[in-house]
């Protein structure tokens, strides 16, 4: 027997299963990053000295990365809108752009890390560097996860468009929700680590 409400929404909740599932997952992600932010606050308040982010970190690169990630969020939502308008070619274009932008983000991040390592700034250098590497590293892993999912939806996963277009559109929407969340985390990480 098929599991109901994989495509069409359940009347009383108004949701299909995966949409509720991804939002619950994101709720747990909020608590994960929330705990890390909370740790950051506790350590910063308890520290005798705390550097300003701009003393150690490269704000121009991080600003470019912010623009890159926000743009990728727009292309992601556009890829969903293209599917909703039954335009698979435009979907491929926007999804490809999303993945490309995510890779640009990771490459820039890689340069940032390399510059830190060159100056001997490892996570063990100070509590500030420790929290910087942990938070951006964990966020980077989320980006990698998103790239994997999105690549699947661009490549082999897109075959579902032929057999079950409604379900495929839902999948893209769910992947998009995750992707916007990763963007949203960065929107907080950027000022907290770099600007303050």
């Amino acid at each position: 027997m098929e599991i109901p409400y994989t495509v069409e929404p359940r009347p009383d909740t108004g949701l299909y299963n995966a949409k509720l599932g991804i939002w619950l997952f994101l709720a747990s992600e909020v608590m994960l990053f929330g705990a890390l932010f909370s740790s950051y606050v506790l350590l910063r308040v308890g520290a005798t000295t705390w550097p300003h982010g701009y003393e150690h970190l490269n704000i121009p690169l991080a600003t470019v990365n912010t623009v890159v990630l926000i743009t990728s969020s727009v292309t992601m939502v556009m890829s969903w809108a293209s599917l909703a308008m039954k335009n698979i070619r435009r979907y491929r274009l926007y999804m490809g752009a999303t993945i490309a932008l995510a890779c640009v983000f990771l490459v820039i991040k890689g340069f940032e890390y390399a510059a830190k390592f060159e100056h001997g700034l490892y996570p063990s250098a100070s509590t500030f560097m420790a929290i910087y590497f942990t938070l951006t590293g964990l966020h980077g892993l989320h980006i990698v996860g998103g790239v994997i999912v999105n690549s699947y939806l661009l490549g082999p996963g897109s075959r579902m468009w032929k057999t079950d277009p409604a379900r495929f559109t839902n999948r893209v929407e769910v992947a998009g929700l995750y992707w916007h969340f990763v963007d949203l985390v960065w929107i907080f990480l950027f000022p907290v680590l770099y600007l303050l």
Partner: protein
Amino acid sequence: MSEAAPGAHGVVHTDQHAPQGFWRTYVFSQDHKTIGIQYAITALLFLLFGFTLMMIMRWQLAYPGQAIPFIGKLFGDSRAPEGIMLPEFYNQLGAMHGTIMVFLGVVPLAVGAFGNYVMPLQIGAPDMAFPKLNMMSYWIYFVGGVTMLSSFLMPGGAAASGWTSYAPLSVIATVGQTVWLFGMICLITSSLLGSVNFITTIFQLRAKGLSFMRLPFFVWAQLVTSFLLLLAFPPLEAAGVLQLMDRLAGTSFFMPSGLVVSGQALANTGGGNPLLWQHLFWFLAHPEVYVLILPAMGIVAEIIANNTRKPLWGYRSMVYATIFLGFMSFVVWAHHMFLTGMGTVISSFFQATTMIISIPSIIILTALFLSLWGGSIRFTTPMLFALAFLPMFGIGGLTGLPLGLAPADIHLHDTYYVIGHFHYVVAPGTLFALFAGLYYWFPKVTGRKMNDTLGKIHFWLSFAFINGVFMPMFIQGLAGVSRRLYDGGAMYSHAQGVMHLNVFMSVCAWCLGLAQIPFIVNFFWSIRKGKKVSDNYWDATTLDWAATTSPPMAHGNFSPLPEVYRGPYEYSVPGNGRDFLPQNTQAEVH
């Protein structure tokens, strides 16, 4: 596959119930019932293993410094030279006993096994909402469990910093602690995926007519538990990541400045805060207490309603109490930290929330007691365990109140009183409820019932000995004996008056181990030889008993899906031919 092969030319299996291979049916199954059974078997083995660790520890507590008989030599010189347990090994056993019992035993059995098997049946669903995710949850749990066990083989042995893994001790511990952290991250991930699946299933796949106030209490308990797992576990995952960074990347999240260990200043930069670990740990671990107890209450509620042949007393109050309990459990964590230099204002706050959270527990327990009132009780084996749960959990809960009050906690903190308190909640409390559940749903899973004589022997012996183990702990604790002592406190003069209890408790613990033999025998014997029984052996009302016994091992528990017309506990409704009205019966039977 071999059945399909002969004469299969040109036959296309369009039928989705086509027989699957052995691996897909029994190992990498996506069926919630198979996964539930997998969870149950794995968790029971871990419970047995964790209990064995404790039985070994109890030798050292009863007879400090004497060689462990029979098996002592097997541990090797690094753990127990000449069979005499080393303090380091004692610490490993203690830390791993706690971790295994909580994270690998009780929660997977209560949520993974009972939740997976029973909940979808009770809501009339064909399966979980995300079957693949369900399979992943189990296998990630399995990997986490194996990782945990493998830590015993690491140089320096397993994690030895207690199940709480307080920093900075845990940060400077041997490599076993790193393995513990990886294991925990697996277990947390598994729980998160599981809870997403549970909540989605309960919201989306309820049968037609099954409104929230018609859900069996067990489903409510699982729903609130899932929310606790979903939202309380991530902070511990964050803490685990930070501790891994401390151990592997040399950061100092939990390491204060100027820490000196064994006369040597540590090389790390410092500037961290050991109490941060405690905050994050207890932010999970207090809700975790309710993760341990709520499914147990759910099981007990089902069994009590069924065996008193009465509706649950105050079903709505119980549901609201459960929701309130779940919410409040997030704002009590610091009552574990009264002795960390907290001032009176903040400790008063957490003291107040702690007293408040005892109210919903008492509501639930009172409602269950009142449900017994005037019932014609059937003293079946599951009912005996369910009935024992009530006073045992009562003792566990009431002894917790002095711990929640800062002034009393100053005396009782970290003594055997604490050990007695939470073991009463989890061992004769939750574990008894889980045993009740095993006896209760066994006929649904296997089509056979477990033997009652062996069941009753198992119950009475367990009941007697488990109290023999834990009741003296209150006496020792009140006398000021600290927990986690290698010699059980023998070196302290203030403990001398209560040391003799250690032998009694240890003997009770070993007898408790022997008392599980009737259960193990009964379990395996009944699978093959138990009395065959009907689909609804207990004359129950909930939908799990409307499914055929031992439902097929592929998606699809019901055909067609049931519809619900009434509340979950319509027992002894006047004017009917029989004393129960299943939720899916439309017209009243006369």
